[in-house]
């Protein structure tokens, strides 16, 4: 046996014994050290990258603004993964006091009964005026007349166009709230006048966009008023509004000015790349993408509301993003601290800075008066549009989101239908099939959850 191997094996054995000693002598969770006289509020969130830095700024601001509580932010992975972690750790010492859960998990969160509605705290708080918060965002996270969660990072789907290209080819830009035919006109002109070098438009195969198009046309996808007055038992995808949306896309595919980037996460990145490189002139995306589209982009950016069908008024789209929920498994004092944090996060100055650094919309009406946002709008006037769209929307059951569990599966099925129709399939047939499969899934999931 070589000496070297022997030595390495001995050192290996030593390391292992050291580890065991280490593990069993210090069996307390790894935690960031902190001053202990403040009440700790553990905050789980799913914001990575640049938005995490912005979020930490909010948290630090809150911790400095008072001396009673200390919020400890902890990143938990993607929205989907975090939901499972929140539900599975509820009631243990590791569970969070306040957490961020995304839009389509709202029904699941309400039904879990693991949270305290923020309304309970708002009712006792004379300083907080809920009316200041954008109504469309509020109504998304309320149920039974109670604010269930505090809307937080909020975005809306908007239509982006390359204003420089439109100017170059002398095309009249679309109006701020365009109809389908307005967009078709611009897309066709861009495609023709650029000598077929630039495609007119794209719409990603993404269930969220199909839902928003239906919402904007004033149609509810799920029964029981999109789940706001009872647990939904069926959906109807094959409705005139959804059909009109897909027919509009069909028309553009036929005239050649449409480019299909497919579905999935890479489709989003590819269409952004295509737009920035001037290969496509119009696309629809979350308003939170604005940072990516303006940073170092030489071309001027144009933004309009989400398009709506011809001959009717836009109903307004629902919001995307996530909200802050307060867990009910923590002592009263901790829950109160969680509420104080949520309240701080929605104060005018914080929201204004939040919009500037992340691209998510400022939800407090008074934020618009803050200098930060005024400066931002002076520099990029188009940055105002998503916030206006949010303020314009009058909340109703249709544009307050779909309170349906299993939205992830629903979106997948919607995307299958979109894909089929993009590839030239029959729209009614594709939507009928999606309706059938979604309804099947709702039935199974309702039975599994024990809803009659």
């Amino acid at each position, binding site marked *: 046996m070589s000496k070297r191997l022997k030595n390495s094996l001995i050192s290996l054995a030593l390391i292992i014994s050291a580890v065991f000693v280490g593990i069993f002598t210090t069996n307390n969770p790894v935690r960031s050290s902190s001053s202990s006289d403040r009440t700790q509020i553990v905050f789980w969130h799913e914001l990575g990258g640049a938005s995490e830095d912005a979020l930490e700024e909010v948290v630090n601001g809150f911790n400095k603004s008072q001396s009673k509580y200390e919020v400890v932010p*902890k990143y938990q992975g993607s929205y989907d993964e975090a939901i*499972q972690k929140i539900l599975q750790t509820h009631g243990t010492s590791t569970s969070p006091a306040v957490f961020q859960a995304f839009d389509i998990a709202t029904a699941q969160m309400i039904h879990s009964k693991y949270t305290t509605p923020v309304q309970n705290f708002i009712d006792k708080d004379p300083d907080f005026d809920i009316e200041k918060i954008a109504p469309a965002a509020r109504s998304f996270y309320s149920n039974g007349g109670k604010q269930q969660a505090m809307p937080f990072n909020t975005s809306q789907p908007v239509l982006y166009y390359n204003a420089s290209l439109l100017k170059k080819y002398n095309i009249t830009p679309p109006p701020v709230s365009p109809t389908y035919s307005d967009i078709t006109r611009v897309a066709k002109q861009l495609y023709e006048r650029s000598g077929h070098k630039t495609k007119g438009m794209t719409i990603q195969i993404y269930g969220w966009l199909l839902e928003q198009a239906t919402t904007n046309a004033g149609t509810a996808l799920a029964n029981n008023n999109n789940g706001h007055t009872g647990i939904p038992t069926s959906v109807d995808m094959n409705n005139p509004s959804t059909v009109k949306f897909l027919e509009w896309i069909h028309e553009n595919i036929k005239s050649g000015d449409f480019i299909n980037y497919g579905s999935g996460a890479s489709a989003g990145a590819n269409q952004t790349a295509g737009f920035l490189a001037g290969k496509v002139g119009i696309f629809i995306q979350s308003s939170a993408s604005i*940072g*990516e589209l303006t940073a170092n982009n030489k071309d001027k950016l144009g933004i309009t509301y989400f398009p709506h069908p011809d001959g009717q008024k836009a109903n307004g789209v629902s919001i995307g993003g996530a909200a802050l929920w307060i867990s009910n498994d923590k002592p009263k004092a901790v829950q109160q601290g969680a509420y104080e944090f949520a309240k701080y996060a929605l104060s005018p100055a914080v929201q204004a800075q939040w919009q500037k650094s992340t*691209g998510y919309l400022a939800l407090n009406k008074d934020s618009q008066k803050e200098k930060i946002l005024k400066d931002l709008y002076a520099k990029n006037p188009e940055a105002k549009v998503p916030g206006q769209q949010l303020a314009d929307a009058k909340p109703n059951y249709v544009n307050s989101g779909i309170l349906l569990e299993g939205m992830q599966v629903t979106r997948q099925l919607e995307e299958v239908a979109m894909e089929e129709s993009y590839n030239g399939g029959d729209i009614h047939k594709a939507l009928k099939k999606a309706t059938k499969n979604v309804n099947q899934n709702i039935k199974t999931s309702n039975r599994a959850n024990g809803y009659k």
Partner: protein
Amino acid sequence: MISTNKPSRLNKIVSYTLLLLLAFVILAPFFIGIWTSFLPTMEIAKGNFLSTDLSFNNYVAAFTKTPILRYLANSLVVSTLTMAAQLVFCSMSAYAFVFLKFKYRNAIFILFLITMMLPFEAEIIPNFTTVKNLGMLDHYSVLLIPFLTSAFGTFMLRQSFMQTPNELKEAADIEGLNHFQFYWNIVLPYNKVSLITLGAYSFLGAWNQYLWPMLTTFSNNSRLIQNGLRQLQSEETFNDWGMIQASAAIIVIPTILVLFIGQHYFKSGMNEGAVK
């Protein structure tokens, strides 16, 4: 002479062209990845990969703006310990299955194998509940204890130990070596190659873990590198692709080192003969 040389030369050209082509297909994505890690984010977002605006800015940003060093250290500690523990425990259990005679030896070994049939992802719910009740969540131990041994390691080393010539065991018996001496002085050195293979395998396995650490750790202090990489990406807003790509390149380096070192030992191990 010439007539026999020609087809073999042609043969060589064809096989080398084919090898080059395959090497290109396999290596191209890797080198594109390294290349983009030097590009500014805007060029990447535009899909302009032929830009010559190269710099180390992304690497500087990755090290200074993110806790990636902490994650690297966490991963290094967890992976090294997992590897060390698996080598010790797997080799010991494999030794027992090969050189010790006891009742139900085969039945117990089959039980070992059965645990290999279920993928880890399928056992994740009961495992999560177990560690939750043990109070191990968000602690290094939750990343280590479930992986201290593996059925695959035992299985692999058992196959290798079975190849150890019986003469060695007999000679050891004549010399009066006890079980531990035989295990330590003869079986382990003789099976060096398998041990190094298992070591590299378990190190990389631990290094590339994603789902389990994502579920069981909650704070930056205990986060592993693959989850840290995910954290650099945001959901909807602006992504600094250049910095993310640079971090991915940094993360790959230890993997490559382990493979190269493993390969070096693998070669030298093959050349050594233990039986004369």
